[in-house]
């Protein structure tokens, strides 16, 4: 029975971090630490002495980890970026998912693979959820703006809600713009008139 691995996840977003921890726990009994602070990262990682560090490729803090990849760095053990390993398909999948892994002390490929697989799956899932959430938020914002634009038109031109909507729709078609953009333009300039 190989010893359990010590894994560090660098992630600011708590929900996202928990998702990834869940995914990794399903792949084995690991000691997992989440670091959410961006500052002093290299020092804190060195103190925890992990086997694997997982970090979002989109995080600017990746550059701080690069320091660890130097043999003369604060952690006197070799740290390799996972992309150095030979498994091209897995590396590609990791980059697609936006996860980067730093492997300490030449951890064997067969021990790393299940962890990365799990991380890749979770990173995909979380980014899907994120884009869905962003889309929902945007839709809500747009609806609010359109409602306010309708209100302005109803008041200014003394028309019904349906007629106000039709006016906006027609303006959008005539100008070849999105309804939400026309509404936004109206709302943002209407204040100047009153």
């Amino acid at each position, binding site marked *: 029975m190989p010893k359990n691995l010590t894994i560090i996840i660098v992630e600011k977003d708590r929900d996202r971090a928990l998702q990834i921890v869940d995914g990794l726990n399903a792949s084995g009994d690991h000691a997992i630490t989440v670091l959410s602070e*961006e*500052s*002093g990262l*290299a020092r804190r990682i060195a103190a925890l002495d992990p086997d694997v560090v997982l970090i979002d*490729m*989109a*995080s*600017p*803090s*990746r*550059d*701080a*980890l*690069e*320091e660890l*990849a*130097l*043999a*003369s760095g604060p952690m006197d053990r070799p*740290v*390799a*970026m996972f*992309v*150095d390993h030979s498994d091209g398909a897995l*590396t*590609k999948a990791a*980059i697609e998912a936006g996860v*980067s892994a*730093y492997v300490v002390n030449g951890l064997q490929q067969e021990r790393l693979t299940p962890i990365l697989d799990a991380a890749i799956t979770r990173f995909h899932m979380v980014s899907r959820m994120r884009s869905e959430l962003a889309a929902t938020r945007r839709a809500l914002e747009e609806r609010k703006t359109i409602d306010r634009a309708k209100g302005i038109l109803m008041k200014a031109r003394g028309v019904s809600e349906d007629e106000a909507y039709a006016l906006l729709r027609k303006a959008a078609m005539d100008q070849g713009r999105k309804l939400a953009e026309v509404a936004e333009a109206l709302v943002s300039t209407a204040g100047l008139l009153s």
Partner: protein
Amino acid sequence: MTYTLPTGYIPLTDAAPLIIARSLGFDEEEGLHLELHRAPSWATLRDYLAMGRVEAAHLLAPLPIAAALGLGGAAQPLEVLSVLSLNGTVIGVSPGLAHLMRGNGYRFDFADARAAGEALFALDQPLRVGVPFPFSMHAELLFYWLDALGLPADRRPTIHTVPPPLMAEAMAKGEIDAFCVGEPWGTISVENGVGELLLPGQAIWQSAPEKVLATRHGWADRHPDLAGRLIRCLWRAGRWLGDAQNMTTCAEILSRPEHLGVSPDLIDRALSGRLVVSPRGEIRQADRFVAFFDGAATFPWQSQAAWIGVQLARRHGRDPVKSAQAAQAVFRADLHRHHLSQVTRSLPGASAKVEGALSHASALGSENGRLILPPDSFFDGRIFDPERVT
């Protein structure tokens, strides 16, 4: 036929040649469409390039050389086709240190590297200095400065990697006491009241290659037509940037949210060399604070690659002679000259020179003899001869 070329950059003032080439259509003039990808960190941009997600990238000049020496996390060998910018970095200190230095009579002239170093190290405080990346001109200039000042090992500051967007925060939290960073991040530290600018990078070395255009090893030889278009469109963008009249327009374009997303007047300071050095609004003028074109600024001098290679080798226990050779091979002066031969004759005939030998702008023999090289001195007057590395 227009070729689309995915190209990566980090949102910094010196990404201007790429952003301008795309925004003003210098790429289309060469039948190229630069599809720009903004990257979150140097490590990620390097990996995008290594894995083929982008074909070309705006990189720190020492990064491809470190890769050639097997340092850091890059296995893929890279090549440099052009230099994108010279100089453009700043060294800054915390307001607390600045106050102490002022109290001792130091005037913050933003010019004299020896005086600045002596004033800073006379405080005799333990210092932590942030740099953006372990393989960066920021780190190289700092190490050179410390070496030349002759500080004993126990009085040397420690150098830490801090991503530029977090530099101001690290200063505010007191995790670092000083920094060497590219614009607009030094200026942003001043704006946030957490830093005061001590020196421009060029006070240490007057002509330091800062950012380069890198591709995977062998790419430019396999795609000579594309490489030529790429080198030429960036040269044209550089020529536009070299005209001082275009600086305001440049600052406006860089400030757009899809690029730097920073107010244009902050970007303008680096482009014009008129930097606000303290939160009290003191202004210092630095000529050639960042250079994109004049004096063959785009030319990848192999001697500059060798200088970087030797510095890295000494610090990481590698053989300096072999490292200098490996580094020179990374800077493709031959390809740069070849692909620009149709558009300009003002390129150096040689691929290497003695670095640090020019204390004043000097004429150099080029094909038509009109090339004026800018001064390239090191602040301590040393010279670096790539033929005499030991």
